[in-house]
């Protein structure tokens, strides 16, 4: 067991964002967290990395657990000059080979001399993935890491994630909207809406009534929505960030 939440609740002021979360992640497992906007996915992640404190319940981590974190969106102030290479070596230095390997794993080799400011959204997200891989993490947390990537890019990205798990042997917890894209690569799906609605193997979850109730879909309209989003990526709503 790498990490375990026991009856975890999180409040923002008086508003309860997460209630009674029981969740554990095993070594080498890929877990996908699904949920509509405002369901507390990002809050759950921020609690797992320690950026937010639970108002009740217990969060247990394996002693010495190394977490690699890929944030949802990252704004880098243009007043701060920063090359990809320098960013990869922050906070601690790595050999040039290690950095090159990590960039290669994430699918962005030869970017090391670029300024972060000049990268596209997709490139920057992959640099963030590469950086998260550097410390050989036991657990990789990805917060909607495919934002800014097209469908082909997303599918490639998730295949990359699965191969990263196979190579580095780390567990992966990721937030995603795209169950169809992640289905083949994920071991377990958790549907979140303030509490855990349902969880299980992706096939089981995608057939479950709770999943359809949560997203307000029947099977046909789900396929239609999926296609619709494919043609109009700008209509996708964005998850609000809380901190």
């Amino acid at each position, binding site marked *: 067991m790498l990490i375990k939440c026991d009856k975890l609740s999180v409040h923002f002021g008086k508003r309860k964002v997460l209630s009674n979360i029981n969740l554990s992640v095993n070594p080498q497992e890929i877990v996908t967290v699904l949920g509509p906007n405002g369901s507390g996915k990002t809050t759950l992640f*921020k609690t797992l*990395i*320690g*950026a937010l404190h639970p108002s009740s319940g217990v969060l247990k981590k394996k002693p010495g657990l190394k*977490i*690699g*974190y890929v*944030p949802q969106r*990252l*704004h*880098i*102030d243009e*007043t*701060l*000059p*920063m*090359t990809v290479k*320098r*960013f990869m070596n*922050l*906070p*601690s230095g790595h050999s040039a080979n290690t950095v090159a390997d990590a960039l290669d794993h994430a699918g962005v080799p030869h970017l090391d001399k670029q*300024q972060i400011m000049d990268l596209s959204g997709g490139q920057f997200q992959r640099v963030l993935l590469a950086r998260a891989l550097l410390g050989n993490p036991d657990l990789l*947390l990805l917060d909607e890491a495919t934002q800014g990537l097209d469908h082909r890019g997303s599918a490639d990205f998730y295949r990359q994630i699965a191969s990263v798990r196979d190579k580095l042997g780390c567990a992966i917890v990721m937030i995603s909207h795209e169950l169809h894209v992640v289905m083949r690569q994920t071991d377990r799906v958790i549907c979140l809406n303030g509490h855990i609605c349902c969880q299980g193997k992706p096939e089981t979850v995608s057939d479950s009534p709770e999943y359809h109730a949560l997203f307000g879909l029947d099977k046909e309209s789900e396929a239609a929505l999926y296609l619709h989003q494919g043609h109009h990526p700008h209509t996708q709503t964005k998850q609000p960030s809380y*901190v």
Partner: protein
Amino acid sequence: MFDDFLVRAMLASVGVALAAAPLGCFVIWRRMAYFGDATAHAAVLGIALSLTLSVPIFAGVLVVCLLMAIMVSSLTGRGFAMDTMLGVASHSSLAIGLVAVSFLSGVRIDLMSYLFGDILAVGHMDLMVIWGGALIVLGLIVWRWSGLLLSTLNSDLALASGFNPKQEQLILTIALAIVVAVAIKVVGVLLIAAMLIVPAATARTFSSTPEAMAIIAACLGVFCGISGLQASYLMDTPTGPTIVCVSAFLFIVTNLVVRILPLNGLTKKNS
């Protein structure tokens, strides 16, 4: 050699520039320029209190600046934006300080020397305080560099790497208070923010990494300190403002050159 007032003045300006310019990079990156200004204004209240209580100016200013910074940080977010709180704290402490100074009838003080600095009157003791403070600030920045930089970049990334962004913010606040306290003698309350920001802003143009920007800023700061002192000696102008004028001149010239040079390159290619 330390007996020459010009040598002491030069060493004082070099000491302040060495600490202020790299710290100024963080002030720029974190968009804390107004914070630096407010801390400097609070220093006037610190000066008044030090004179009333007969304690060293350095100590009084340091305490008041730290108190103001902590008060602003803790009140921000409870219905007040950071710049609102800074506006309240900065100008009220400036005003209270100026009123308090007027009550000090028994002491003869030259307010101008605190507002604009009195670098030519730097004594041996001042020099030790300035260099002591500068070395503490440089030490803090070098020691906490990674944590400071990562927290500046993104607080979630910092937390995930095991740093505490609030602690790093506190370290910057303390460093800022120390720089303000030691720089009063050199450039005065009103121009401290310039020592922080102008060399760092000039350095941004030439830098591709944060380390390069901090080092270039420190070099530019030292250069402006020395040449500003010489210019003020030659032209018989007030020293603190002259140092800031040289920095500002350098900022304008480098930005003009950077804007114009690529254009020249283009026209040559085209013709």
